[in-house]
């Protein structure tokens, strides 16, 4: 059997470089996911309030996010803004802006759906106890919404983590880019490195996303 090409990673600081790349990917994911979840909760609640103007704006926002590929958005934000607005955005900042723009819309839609799935009479029984709108949301609706949201938002989180691999396109050296560099640099000595190195990247992504999805199963069972 041919060499699997994993040995390349043992050369020099290759493996630690790969881990650094992974760190960059995770950093962008973590920041984007955190902001998206927090703002998404707010946007989701706003979507359920019956304000026609707000609803209309948010609907358009959601559609825009659905229609445009993330990569196009990334190019618009990173390359497009430079000349037009004279802004010099860092690649990482652009990436986070784009992922947050996307994540908030999707998270908001999930939150909206989860709130809608709570029967109206739960609101009413809370109102009947003399609670005001804020109390009804904080004590009754949001806690139930969060439980329903867990599986859905975990799915979004893992998708966002995976999609960070796009940031290569604006020159961010994250795990995939480092992998490419390592493979290119060792093309002649280890021609099989593509399999081994990308294989390791695959395992890295798996090791990160799998515990997250296990956590969702655990929480779902606990709160069912």
């Amino acid at each position: 059997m041919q060499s699997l090409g994993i040995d390349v990673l043992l050369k020099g600081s290759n493996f630690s470089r790969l881990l650094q790349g992974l760190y960059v990917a995770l950093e962008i994911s973590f920041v984007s996911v955190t902001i998206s979840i927090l703002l998404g909760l707010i946007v989701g609640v706003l979507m359920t309030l019956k304000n026609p103007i707000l609803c209309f704006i948010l609907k358009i926002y959601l559609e825009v996010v659905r229609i445009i590929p993330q990569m196009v958005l990334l190019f618009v934000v990173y390359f497009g803004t430079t000349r037009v607005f004279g802004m010099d955005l860092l690649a990482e900042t652009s990436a986070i802006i784009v992922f947050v723009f996307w994540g908030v819309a999707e998270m908001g839609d999930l939150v909206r759906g989860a709130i809608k799935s709570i029967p109206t009479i739960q609101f009413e029984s809370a109102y009947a106890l003399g609670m005001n709108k804020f109390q009804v949301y904080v004590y009754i609706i949001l806690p139930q919404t969060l439980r329903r949201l867990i599986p859905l938002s975990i799915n979004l989180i893992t998708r966002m983590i995976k999609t960070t691999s796009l940031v290569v396109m604006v020159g961010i050296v994250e795990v995939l880019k480092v992998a490419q560099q390592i493979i290119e640099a060792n093309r002649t000595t280890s021609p099989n490195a593509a399999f081994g190195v990308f294989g390791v990247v695959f395992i890295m992504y798996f090791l990160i996303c799998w515990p997250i999805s296990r956590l969702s199963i655990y929480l779902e069972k606990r709160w069912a």
Partner: protein
Amino acid sequence: MKELLKVKHLHKKFGENVVLNDIDLVVNKGEVVVVIGPSGCGKSTFLRCLNGLEKVQGGVVTVDGLPVEPDKKSIIKLRQKIGMVFQSYELFPHLSVIDNLILAPTKVQKRNKEEVIREAIELLEKVNLVEKKDFFARQLSGGQKQRVAIVRALLMHPDILLFDEVTAALDPEMVHEVLQTMLNLAKSGSTMIIVTHEMNFARAIADRILFFDKGEIVEQTDDVKAFFEKPKTKRAQRFLSTFSYS
């Protein structure tokens, strides 16, 4: 006798559909009023108008002299005077029994938590549910859930209690335990308005019977016994006859 709840010329429509047509009612303190009538006659909607869960198209409801207005801030205070128990219990599924009970008294009325817990436990003892205090709604039977819901309403110290077909979703044995709880409440002098399809229970608990049909009070009487033996109106006779078989 003190007038607690007053309804004057109440009109309620869903779109073009008239659900309540010019309802007048006065309920005195300590009185138990039972509302009966065929399904869809507007009796549940009527109850919901009393605590402002439904907007009305005309007329006024006052509790203790204060008007019930769904869109005003005052409704928050007013609803604390009006306890409501629903057919489908509506316990909060993410909270334990005890947390369901103390939430509104501590957060809405800002009462002392230890005292509320103590009172909650006392009430749970009265309905034989004290050992369930840390359970969640999904671990309770329908009858148990409904008794918890009643205790939850009581803990707010309401002036008046509204019961919206609270036994309609229960098995016969559980109906009994819930109705017994309500009978005890009536004996202790609570003011109650009860919508029900349990005629024997209505007969046992009511100080007054309201017979609703097609959004109107067709018959109203303090002579509960006479009503069930021989109602005055044709419509009530026809309705009551559907409960007996020969």
